[in-house]
């Protein structure tokens, strides 16, 4: 149900989005002239989810919505906006789901803590066992 609602919401949002990008997304598949800016834009595109696709970033999709978003991102970067500012703008508009780069929201803290906890626990376990074996031997 929530998925259906989201889909519907996207459907409604799409024309509004397209309006800002029309006439047809000039920078969808055209690189920016400044390589540094293009690199910034590409890096950002790889971390933005294509909302009408399944598990693809907008950099890896043929969907028209992804094209519009690529164009939008390139234009904004060309105007001098910072990638994180654009990401924030996208998240505000479409929700956390759009960003593949997990943010530092509290709900995602366990995700970032997991590697440290696992490595710590595993290391302690291995260290304890190896030391115990040594003691047992001596």
């Amino acid at each position: 149900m929530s998925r259906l609602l989201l889909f519907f919401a996207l459907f409604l949002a799409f024309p509004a989005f397209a309006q800002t990008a029309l006439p047809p997304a000039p920078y969808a598949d055209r690189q920016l002239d400044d390589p540094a800016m293009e690199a910034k834009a590409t890096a950002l595109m790889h971390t933005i989810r294509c909302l009408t696709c399944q598990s693809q970033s907008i950099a890896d999709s043929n969907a028209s919505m992804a094209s519009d978003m690529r164009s939008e991102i390139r234009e904004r970067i060309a105007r001098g906006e910072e990638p994180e500012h654009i990401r924030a703008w996208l998240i505000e508009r479409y929700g956390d789901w759009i960003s593949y780069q997990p943010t530092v929201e509290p709900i995602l803290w366990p995700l970032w803590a997991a590697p440290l906890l696992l490595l710590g626990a595993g290391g302690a376990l291995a260290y304890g066992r190896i030391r115990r074996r040594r003691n047992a031997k001596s």
Partner: protein
Amino acid sequence: MIAEAGLAALWLAALLAGAQLLFAWAAVAKGNADALRLIRPVTVAQGVLTGLAMTLLIILFLRSDMSVYLVAANSHSMKPFIYKFAGAWGNHEGSMLLWVAVMSLAGAAVALFERGLDKRTHIATLGAQAAISLGFYAFLLLASNPFARLDPAARDGQGLNPLLQDPGLAFHPPTLYIGYVGLSVAFSFAVGALLTRQVNARFARAVRPWVLAAWILLTFGITAGSYWAYYELGWGGWWFWDPVENASLMPWLAATALLHSASVLATRDALRAWTIMLAVVAFAMSMIGTFLVRSGILTSVHAFAVDPTRGSFILILLGIYIGGALILFALRAHTVNEGARFDPVSREAMLVINNLLLCVILALVLIGTLYPLLTEMMGVRVSVGPPYFNTIIGPIALALMVVLVIGPMLRWRKDDAKLLLRRAAVPGGLALLALIAIVGLSSRAVGLLPTLGLAVAAALALASLAPLWKRNLLRTPLFTYGMVIAHFGCAVSLAGMASESAFSSERLAAAKPGDTYEIAGMTVRLDSVMPFAGPNWTAMQAALTVSKDGRVIGVAHPQARFFSDPPTPTTESVQMTRWNGQLYLVLGEALEDGRWQLRIWWKPFVTFIWLGGGLIALGGVLALIGRVRRERRNSKAQASAAAAMVAA
């Protein structure tokens, strides 16, 4: 008639699986001699029957029998032969039948060829295998019958997802499935050994070839799947951290850990409980993988055959088998002692770290894949994608590779840290040289992880050859070569990944015929875009001439295809392979002013990624042959020694 015969074969096989479980129990618990004699023929018959059912389903697809629901929903009479053939498992029911068929054929193979285990453990293993099979028979016959009829018959089929109409599909899923199911054999061995309290080096030597075989197929399947996604999706990426990719990666990680801990158990009789635990985890990951892919619970580019209602069935099976195994483990853990001891500076200790890192990576992939589901239950939709996995798993995987440099240089049981430093000096120096070369010579800024990746790859490539150092190469056993080649493959693959991520270049263009583009010292010219017709699709096909220093290297024909049944556009990219990388060419959409979108990538040494994967699998094959030959020779020697004693 064919469909009915297939269904009958399946029911009969399910009955035999029930008999197999009963006989195994009677033989192991009660010592019943009749049951002991019957269990092997029953197991083999069950394998033959499911093999027959799978063959009949393939025949139905080849004949395009539209009175069978599955064929009508997934095939089409106009489809090329190979895709009719592969279409038999390109859907939920067919793939579950394939799973069951492979599982009972593997059971038959265990019944026929396993000689290393003691008799009771062998029978208990067959019983465990029957118990797992029964659950999947229930799933197949009650919730996903592949032979259901359609009345009235359809006039023609609905076709197969065009993305799946690729030679890769014909071999990729079966390879992965056999790998998944092979891990069920390791699981059954572990349960069998727990039941008869025979967790020891003999058990490890017996289980190792089966784990190796499963692991080889998983390695090969993942490598092929990655290359398939690379050329078929047309965006130049080779690993997307997509849930379905993760589903195949997790059993592989567990199997890799299991393979190494089983080696420790077989050689040194250490890590007994840990090896059993890994066998359980490996099969749990196979089932979780199947659950994730088949239930459609996660959205994914690869989720072609999904049905949420079936997910719960697999989840229940997962609960029964894994829960049951863990309870058995808890009950028997006190009878499994720790095994032989070892020093912190020893090959065993390095293998413990290897296992630890592999398990941490496995846990992180699992958490990252399931996390969006957890937050969704709390009403928040988040995405966990490549940025998370690459940052978190990249460094841990790199640490694993460093352990791989050191591990094989160490002796079993106890070694000297000073000697290790001396042995590691040469590969260490090479890594340092590589580091200086990259930082000093590269014209562009290279990320930290790719730089370190290339340095470690250089060290690993050299260090992986160390086990052959100062040895008589003709008398070195085959499995040592296997290990060397597999570890060398890791270095090759790592170099490919690092190089691709550090040095790729990209050109996007709106091109008209005659336009030229420069990339990595090559010139790409768009000559023309013409219509083109295939057997069940039409396309626009570009002709691109690639030249270097004024000399033509080749002409590429990427296509933008359109499939009619069902209507879907796809891109058919072209990869021009050079010794030092690949030129990746994609024709996109037509623009309104008559120009065409072109995407061109130069990916230096990207082919090393899959070449390395192939080497890893090849190393596994050599190790498998070497191990099986060694075991056979040993058992022959034992038999003749016993005969000599009797004669004396």
